[in-house]
């Protein structure tokens, strides 16, 4: 995986071979079982039977299937709509399932989902991207972790990048930034990596999908993990905040970014340097 370990678990795994996701998903879910979590593996309906058969031959998963600690679900069963999902409804469903898992004595709920069929079209991806950020926010407050699997040959590099950048962790090596939900003290979003013209369109889309809501007329972004921010992105962030009638606050940004903002003389931008 690229990037450093993050305090909450929402991973994107892009894979090229259909068989490539299951081993990774199983590793992810095995860790959940070891931690006392309930685990779900969500796959296309046509694959669920084969996965269950395989798991019955794997000691840990066979036992967990029997006890109910592990379940194999179809996308139809786990998601509110395969054609176009309902983000808020889906977040609520996972939130309820997490609380039920806790009530049943598990330490949380962990889901690995082969999501390719949910994001085949641009319209599906736009809605799903919004969902990814909403589930990011939910994960900050619930004992819920997830891994989203995307089949790269089916979706293409661009579509995978649109979704991967919204995960705190991903394995897309040439994708240089991430934008995801913060902890309470980090403001409204966390920005990590490098932002420049090569990923500017991708970033604009990610920002739109994130639907950030300023509080007290301030839009606060944690930039302590941001290695590079070019002037176009800085201008865009400033405009994004202004459109929401808020000041842009970049926390933890580099001294170089502060100098760049001073050069551009951008209105309504505050920089808080910590490095």
């Amino acid at each position: 995986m690229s990037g450093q370990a993050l305090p909450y678990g929402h991973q994107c795994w892009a894979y090229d071979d259909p068989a490539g996701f299951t081993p990774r998903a199983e590793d992810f879910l095995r860790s959940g079982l070891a931690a006392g979590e309930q685990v779900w593996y969500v796959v296309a309906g046509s694959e669920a039977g084969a996965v269950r058969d395989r798991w019955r031959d794997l000691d840990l998963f066979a036992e967990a299937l029997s006890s109910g600690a592990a379940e194999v679900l179809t996308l139809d069963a786990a998601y509110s709509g395969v054609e176009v999902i309902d983000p808020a409804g889906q977040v609520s469903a996972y939130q309820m399932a997490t609380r039920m898992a806790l009530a049943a004595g598990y330490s949380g709920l962990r889901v690995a989902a082969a999501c390719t069929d949910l994001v085949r079209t641009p319209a599906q991806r736009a809605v799903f991207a919004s969902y990814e950020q909403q589930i990011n926010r939910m994960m900050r407050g619930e004992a819920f972790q997830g891994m989203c699997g995307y089949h790269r040959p089916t979706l293409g590099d661009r579509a995978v990048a649109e979704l991967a950048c919204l995960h705190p962790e991903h394995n897309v090596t040439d994708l240089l930034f991430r934008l995801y939900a913060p902890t309470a003290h980090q403001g409204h979003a966390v920005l990590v990596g490098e932002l420049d013209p090569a990923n500017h369109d991708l970033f604009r889309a990610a920002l739109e999908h994130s639907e950030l809501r300023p509080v007290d007329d301030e839009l606060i972004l944690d930039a302590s993990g941001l290695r590079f921010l070019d002037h176009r992105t800085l201008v865009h962030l400033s405009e994004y905040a202004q459109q929401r009638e808020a000041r842009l606050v970049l926390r933890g940004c580099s001294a170089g970014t502060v100098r760049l903002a001073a050069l551009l003389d951008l209105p309504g931008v505050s920089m808080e340097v910590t490095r």
Partner: protein
Amino acid sequence: MRTGPAAAESGYLHEALCYASDDELLAVAVPFLLDGVTAGEPTFVALGERTGGLVRSALPVDSGVEFLTGAGVYARPAAAIRMYRKLLADLTAGGADQIRIIGEVPPPSLGSTWDWWARYEAAINRAYDDWPLWSMCAYDTRITPPDVLADVAATHPHIATAGQRHLPSPDYLAPESFLRQNRPAPPDPIQAYPPLLELTDPTAAQARSAVHQAGLGQLSTEDFDDFVIAVSETVTNGLRHGSPPVRLRLWTAPDRIVATVSDTGKGPDDPYAGLLPPADSTPGGLGLWITYQSCNHVTQHRDANGFTLRLTAGQPPGLTAVTQSEPPGGERRPGGSGDPQLSSGTRP
């Protein structure tokens, strides 16, 4: 009401003051400054430590002349233009009918980095023309090389001399004509050696990574970080606006990092590129301007192979040698450093 030779003008009166002795400098500068104060015009001195001290000593106590001090005023041409444009806009908004400034390019910049100061001198004919400015740019002919004096004559429409005479410069070129000249970039000796790194058509991220690989050396973190920004912007411009292939080459020395970014295109059409932000304020067009703000020297050059920008962070070669030269009988002292500061009054 505007006073002096620009009384009937609305924009910028840009004069060169080429002097061969300290007395000659004072004979022009002192009346220029005192007349400004008498007329109620904001009047500034932006000279170096030695020449500024001379002028300060020659003015009466509490003359009302203000001193812009510190090497930061003329650290980088694009930064000087940005600072002066803000100062002029603020003063004019405050009701000034005319602003007077006498300044000088620091003597160390009359050497290997003169090329971008020559472009500065040409560009400000337009950059400051929105305001009623009358300025004199002082050049000490005892230490100014002949080729620099030729550029001074070509970039200043007027020449000020003792006796309050203001003559047109016969060698003056319109700024666009001067800036469109394809002047040879002064070579950096480091370029005689093979580059530390050479990349063809790198992404901006790969270019930044290459700079980090080259390392900080003895540069300050600030200079290094700004250089990373400059290289990233320049490579981006090459990829977006130039013609392939785009080549990045990097050299390092203990006191500097040098990068060249070349492509096979013609370079920017705008003769003011780098010195002024683009008129249409398109954010994407700011890259070269930011680059000029972020490096200690930038050259641009066209030849049969295309267009090349050379960026230098740290100490450009040759600056020290020029710093040590002094006018005959002069008492040159090291210049100050840091950001420009405003001080008023005449004597400390």
